[in-house]
């Protein structure tokens, strides 16, 4: 099974920038976490995102041509901040990996992947 760990964070919470106190510790904690995924052999992909203010959304509908909109697709208190895709035998294992994420506050949505393309681009169920 593959699960996406979808990381949500409140962007109004200040984060230390490069050179500021706490920056090295924060980066180090994330690096250590990602390394632990490598070592367990469960890492598939992952990354952090630029703030939601950089998002552009394309809205498609049956009635009209696609519309380009400034901003993320949902205005919520917490915004999508990053993600991991990991392999895990079952939900309990995936939840354990998600719980270890080195974020003090925020939330992680854990969702199983349904399909993944093979080399020809055809969707295959993720088992």
């Amino acid at each position, binding site marked *: 099974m593959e699960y996406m760990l979808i990381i949500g964070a409140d962007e109004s919470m200040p984060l230390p920038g490069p050179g500021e106190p706490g920056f090295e510790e924060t980066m180090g904690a994330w690096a250590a976490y990602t390394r632990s995924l490598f070592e367990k052999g469960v890492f598939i992909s992952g990354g952090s995102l630029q703030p939601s203010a950089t998002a552009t959304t394309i809205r498609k509908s049956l009635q009209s041509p696609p519309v380009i909109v400034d901003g993320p697709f949902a205005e919520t208190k917490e915004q999508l901040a990053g993600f991991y895709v990991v392999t895990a035998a*079952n939900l309990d294992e995936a939840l354990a990996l998600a719980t270890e994420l080195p974020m003090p506050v925020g939330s992680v949505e854990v969702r199983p992947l349904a399909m993944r393309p093979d080399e020809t681009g055809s969707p295959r169920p993720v088992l």
Partner: protein
Amino acid sequence: MLALLAARFGDLDLADESVQDALVQAVETWSANGIPANPPGWLYTVAHNRAVDRLRRAAASARRLAASAHELTREPEGRQEVPIVEHTEVGDEQLRLMLLCCHPALDRDTQVTLTLRLVGGLTTAEIAGAFLVPEPTLAQRIVRAKRKIRAARIPLTIPADLGERVEVLLTVLLLIFNESYLSRGGTQTLRVDLAEQAIRLTDRARTLLPDEGEVEGLLALELYLHARSATRVDAGGELVLLRDQDRSLWDLELIRRANAVVRRAAARGPIGPFLLQALIASQHANAPTAADTDWPLVADLYARLLSAAPSPVVALNRAVAVAEADGPRAGLALIDDIDGLDDYYLLHVARGELLARAHEPSAAVTALRRALELAPSPAEQRHLHRRIAALA
């Protein structure tokens, strides 16, 4: 049986459908040919065969799909037959099923529904009736839960650290028990007795988790409370306070059972919040009259409960017990220190009653009037009207 089949085929939904098939077939076959010599064995065999049939049909349709679309040739995982489960593992399988139904990834209503449906064996109609929820809503909830269990692969495993999972299980069982005490009107006679279901399920959990004192605590608590269920409401539907209940109508057999459970658990320790509540209920259940209650001991147990599981409601109960032990002023002082219960009618009831006993009738009436504004049910409002009239 469901737990065994779920483990054997690694598929809860398949197991559940097959047991339903077997039960339907039992009704037809048994009424025509009589009941077989070993009914559970008969049901298991039929359910097992039905599951194999369903898998064969699923495999056949998968092959048809594979013929048209090349990618679906692999057999679904977890559906291979495993050797038959040894008898000694049956308890484990039941525990797995119980923990699965109460998995924290399922919402509370779903946990309650699945526990009653899959562990308790109630029908969808019975659960819907017990909670006064439309049957399609409940059926939908079960379908959604099964889909999530399969798609997100919630495992049928017993985690190494049981603590948190047992806590959820106990919360679910307590909710089922409490539901039977919520007067929701409706056609009472048609409703399944949820208190009895909760006791049955808690008793099974105790067998499966023999080292968890809190399971014993909850079981004893439920037995004590159920023992006095006949006296909680009078013939006119009015609530009867504990001190006014006719103790000769309490169910001594249930009290004896509860006493045995509490004694064993308390002797072994540790003593957690449910066991403390059971010990408190035990003091009431075993006192021949209300006046015989050992209030200093009850007050002490509440103090221990308050430090084990702090909550303003427990603090209020402790204040009432202290008032019984040391007089109304001591109780009132503790009530005045409670934060966060200003909108809780029982706080104002307790204050009113203690002020009345402390010979402050006008302050008592003010407190009871505040309680009246907050009282949730007509029975409670009538009771407060009577008390205010008596004091004014």
